[in-house]
């Protein structure tokens, strides 16, 4: 069983500080949804409101269509995995996992069997009688997941569960979490400040800044069509140029900058903004391109294997970045060479700044 979640104009104030600001989002049953944003943007506060530890100052939270205002955490069909896991150190692993069943009055033999089943599900057999302190970071992670799954929640809430693990294990656990979610069909709401994690795991991502939800979309949309400068910068690298918007036609506008005139995509209603181009959309050539081309001097060339990272300086001293696909010929551009960097208008966008005005 899984349930959808609706956040309807949800706000949360701490004294005069607004930690969560008019968040609206509908999360589908069985969806893997991530909230992505820098530290302090209000992600944990959102999870705590959904699980019932914090009350929204304003707005409505619905779980499975039902307004949960006034329900205590122990009455909600959610299970929260804490940032520090919060396993119970004085209980053996199997009691940790079956704590939720103990609360529900399940007898000991059934609890034990259920705990072992869940340990098998999270790929941690033979650990039932160990103590928490005997497990490694990744194993504790799995126990925390098993403990939350034991109560058969309709919604799992995960607060940066992988942040304490080392890189290798983190990547492994990403796949694992995704697989567990698929297997159980439970709605997962996942919090992270790591954009790679969010993009790789989620069905949809909500990008947040300063308590406001900036964009909700699938990972490709978020990366390829960010709605504003904050989303563009937070989910990847960009060359950013300031300038003035000129005439526009067919969703493309002229943009005059100190480096020269450019053309880039623009959305309806955008009147001010900056120009964003990702390094992988920059091309490098001996001759000037047809449009959106800048003469540069290469300042740094690094061979990264699958691509070549190039930093270049314009006449005015602006640094531009490009990532050139390795075509296998082995020829590298030379540092100090004078070349032209260019990009296609359809790969660049004029975006407004983040939507953070406090209501």
């Amino acid at each position, binding site marked *: 069983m899984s349930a959808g979640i609706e956040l309807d104009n949800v706000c949360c104030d701490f004294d005069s500080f607004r930690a969560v600001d008019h968040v609206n989002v509908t999360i589908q049953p069985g969806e893997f949804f991530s909230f992505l944003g820098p530290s302090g943007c209000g992600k944990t506060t959102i999870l705590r409101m959904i699980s019932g*530890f914090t009350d929204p100052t304003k707005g409505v939270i619905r779980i499975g269509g039902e307004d949960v205002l006034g329900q205590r955490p122990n009455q909600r069909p959610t299970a929260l995995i804490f940032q520090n896991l*919060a396993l119970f150190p004085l209980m053996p692993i199997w009691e940790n996992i079956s*704590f939720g069943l103990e*609360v529900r009055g399940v007898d000991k033999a059934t609890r034990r069997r259920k705990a072992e089943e869940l340990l098998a599900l999270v790929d941690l057999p033979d650990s039932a009688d160990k103590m928490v302190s005997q497990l490694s970071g990744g194993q504790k992670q799995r126990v925390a997941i098993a*403990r939350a799954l034991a109560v058969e929640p309709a919604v799992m809430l995960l607060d940066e569960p992988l942040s304490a693990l080392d890189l290798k294990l983190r990547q492994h656990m990403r796949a694992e979490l995704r697989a567990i979610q698929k297997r159980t069909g439970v709605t997962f709401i996942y919090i992270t400040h790591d954009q790679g994690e969010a993009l790789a795991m989620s069905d949809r991502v909500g990008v947040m800044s300063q308590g406001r939800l900036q964009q909700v979309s699938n990972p490709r949309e978020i990366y390829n069509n960010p709605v504003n400068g904050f989303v563009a910068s937070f989910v990847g690298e960009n060359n950013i140029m300031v300038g003035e918007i000129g005439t526009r036609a067919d969703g493309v506008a002229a943009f005059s900058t100190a480096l020269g005139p450019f053309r880039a995509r623009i959305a309806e209603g955008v009147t001010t903004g900056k120009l964003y181009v990702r390094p992988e959309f920059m091309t490098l050539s001996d001759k000037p391109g047809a449009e959106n081309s800048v003469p540069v001097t290469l300042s740094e060339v690094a061979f990264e294997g699958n691509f070549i990272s190039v930093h270049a300086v314009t006449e005015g001293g602006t640094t531009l970045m490009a990532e050139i696909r390795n075509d296998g010929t082995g020829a590298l551009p030379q540092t100090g060479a004078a070349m032209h960097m260019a990009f296609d208008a359809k790969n660049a966008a004029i975006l407004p700044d983040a939507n953070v005005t406090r209501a």
Partner: protein
Amino acid sequence: MEQLYRRYGKGLTFMIVSLTAFWLLVLVILPDFKLLEASFRPYLPVVDIGGPKDTYSLGNYAQILGNPVDFSSFGLSFQIPARVKVFVLTIIYSGMVTLIAFLLAYPLCFYLAKVVSNRSLPTLFLLLFVPLWVSEVLRSFAWFIIMTLKGPLNAILMALGAIEKEIRWVDGYSPVVVTLVYAYVLFMVFPIYNSMQSLDNNQLEAAEDLGAPWWRVHWRIVLPHSKPGIASGSVMVFMLSAGSLLVPAIINSTTGNWFTQTIQGIMLEGQDWNTGAAFAFMLLLFCTVAVIAAMRLFRVSLSDIAR
């Protein structure tokens, strides 16, 4: 030791260590040994000390068994030596003091450690400490005055119309127990507060999130976590209560005698230090046994307490 040496150098380390050793050996262990030795020898006129009558025996210890009195409890009545009765009641009521102190301290500590905001904590601790600035003698007298026949407690109750005639509060063991609880409850509060404070709030929330009602959160998470603090607090309060002379002497409830008062009578009024020492060691021994038994019962180890 090595750390001491590194931090304070040779001269100071030597002084610290030798002063501690002096305190332990000369001021604590030696007098105790002298008393222990004396407790096995009879109380004799000065001329006979060291003479043929001065031999080791358990005679002093056996003196507790004289003078039988009636004792009834749980519908049973039987005869029991007067001093054994006081002894047993002292241990039982000290246990009761410990239990009441725990029941008072536990919710208070939880409130201080987990509920109160950090901002108001210093004020609350100050309020807890203020009574300690007054000496124990005065505090015990205060309770005696509160509970006297014409005292404020009866006056208030009568004014409220709760009682029609003054109640004789200073009777039996209750006034002693009440005053002992008041005198020693902070020795329960601080260790429990300390251990509760180290409990991660997320543990409480995790338990609640998994569906636990508040009482189960306490039973399965808070209580086990605070066990070391509860154990050391209980040992302190129990030992202090059983060994308290001041409080029962000031309350002076004729039907609520404490064993320490028996010892005092023998030592100071009877001038019989040998028997007094024997009784004191018996009290120490039984209290230790009681503590060890309680630790076994609640599965606490010594290292938990030292933590």
